[in-house]
């Protein structure tokens, strides 16, 4: 049930882009209104709801005590899953995650993991025996483009919001809950390429005519921790450098918003 744009809409969008204009009059590198609600889901250890215009994503974290991986006996375990539930778009179908949901989960996961957002060694309870296992679940409620940023930002905010539920688990050997040990705040930004034009925070209609996208995750020291080119188009090397330069600026603004929304002191 893939939806197509009409030829007329498509042409109109191309014409706009050529004139460096967008359907909602935004600048090329401007986010839509970003709303963040943090900690609204009580049963979750941490949660964040991120709205980028009409795109609406909830990320929740859950923790339990489990086994470490044999090759990392001193680290907690991180698992990220995404569901593109059919509520969010007429194009999504029920069933196990397809390749889009898998890519979404893995790109968000790589940002968190490779950027050392969480100090996973502090999630070891007993070396080689038991560690904290953390699930990051991405739930998309309404899809109007740019899921990668909404989910990636939501995941970082949910992590900052997370309380390790030590008091609920006898095996945790601690009596009080404590805030998740955050090492870096990693924030993604996704550039969408339409013909030769790069834009930020693409809406659904824009993604329908997009050639390629490039997601760049940076930490607070402007180090690159994850990248992913997506879609069937290409980038040239020069424009990837351009994107990285722009990403520094943009992600530091986003990072500010995340930290403000989270209201956590010990960071």
């Amino acid at each position, binding site marked *: *049930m893939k939806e197509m744009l009409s030829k007329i809409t498509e042409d109109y969008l191309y014409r706009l882009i050529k004139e460096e204009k967008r359907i909602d009059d935004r600048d090329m590198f401007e986010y839509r209104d970003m709303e963040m609600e943090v900690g*609204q*889901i*009580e*049963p*979750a250890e941490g*949660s964040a709801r991120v709205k980028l215009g*009409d795109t*609406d994503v*909830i990320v*929740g*974290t*859950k923790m*339990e005590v489990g086994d470490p991986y044999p090759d990392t006996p001193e680290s907690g375990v991180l698992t990220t*899953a995404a*569901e593109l*539930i*059919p*509520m*969010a*778009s*007429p194009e999504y179908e*029920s069933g*196990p*995650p397809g390749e889009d949901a898998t890519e979404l989960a893995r790109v968000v996961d790589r940002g968190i993991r490779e950027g050392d957002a969480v100090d996973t060694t502090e999630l070891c309870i007993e070396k080689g025996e038991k560690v904290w296992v953390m*699930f990051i*679940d991405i*739930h998309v*409620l*309404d*899809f*109007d483009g740019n899921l990668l940023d909404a989910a990636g930002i939501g995941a970082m905010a949910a992590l900052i919001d997370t309380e390790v539920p030590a008091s609920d688990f006898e095996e945790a050997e601690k009596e009080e809950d404590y805030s998740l040990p955050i090492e870096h705040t990693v924030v993604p930004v996704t550039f969408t390429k339409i013909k030769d034009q790069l834009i930020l925070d693409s809406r659904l209609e824009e993604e329908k005519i997009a050639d390629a996208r490039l997601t760049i995750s940076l930490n607070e020291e402007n180090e690159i921790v994850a990248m992913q080119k997506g879609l069937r188009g290409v980038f040239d090397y020069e424009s990837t450098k351009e994107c990285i330069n722009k990403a520094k600026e943009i992600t530091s603004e986003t990072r500010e918003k995340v930290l403000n929304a989270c209201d956590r002191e010990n960071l």
Partner: protein
Amino acid sequence: MGSNKDIDLIEDGKRLDGRDFDELREISIDAGVLKRADGSAYLEWGKNKIMAAVYGPREMHPRHAQETTKAVVRARYNMAAFSVPDRKRPGPDRRSTEISKLVSEALEKVVFTENYPRSVIDVFIEVLQASAGTRCGGLTAASVALADAGIPMSDMVASCASGKIEGEVVLDLGKNEDNYGQADVPVGYIPRSDELCLLQMDGNLTQEEYEKAMEMSIDACKDIHEIQRGALRERYSTELQEEEITKASEGVE
């Protein structure tokens, strides 16, 4: 019903959260909260947080599931992984499969399905935070989402449970009451025709207790129906307002 532990659920004639026996938890409903869906509603009911969305009528796939004389109402009830204390594994389980079936059946009665042969009307219920009574909350929200989608209906279904705790029949069990109570009777009610389109029960009730519970629930459903109608009114008036603002601003130009 739960493991019948000796847990006090009633003190001084009130329930632990201060409610009277026949008192609902707080309910609020917003209609038209999602953009992509044809209709939607967001419901908070006590600590439950539930989103419902409607797509359709649209062509039924797979084709062999089409009905030649009417639309099929196909509900899917789903809990977010983080909606409960112990993480819920994604994907349908037996409980959600049954609830999806019952909600589909309950809604089909009020939709004028014969208007849309070979079609499907998809109803998606996502439980974001669960705290006893999610099937009733989901059915209630779904009815509002259907109306918000502009789908012709004879009425909205209102839904609510009552049950028994410490030997007393009470309305709308909360989480502890559900875990440690003695019976639960979820009901889906169509006010206009005074009919039950959802009815389940588990636990232990005498016929007298059953009747008391049902009467409580039906009364409560009438109240819930008012809240549903209020959500729609709110929605339309917002739309109206927006239209007026648009007109006004056009006038200005």
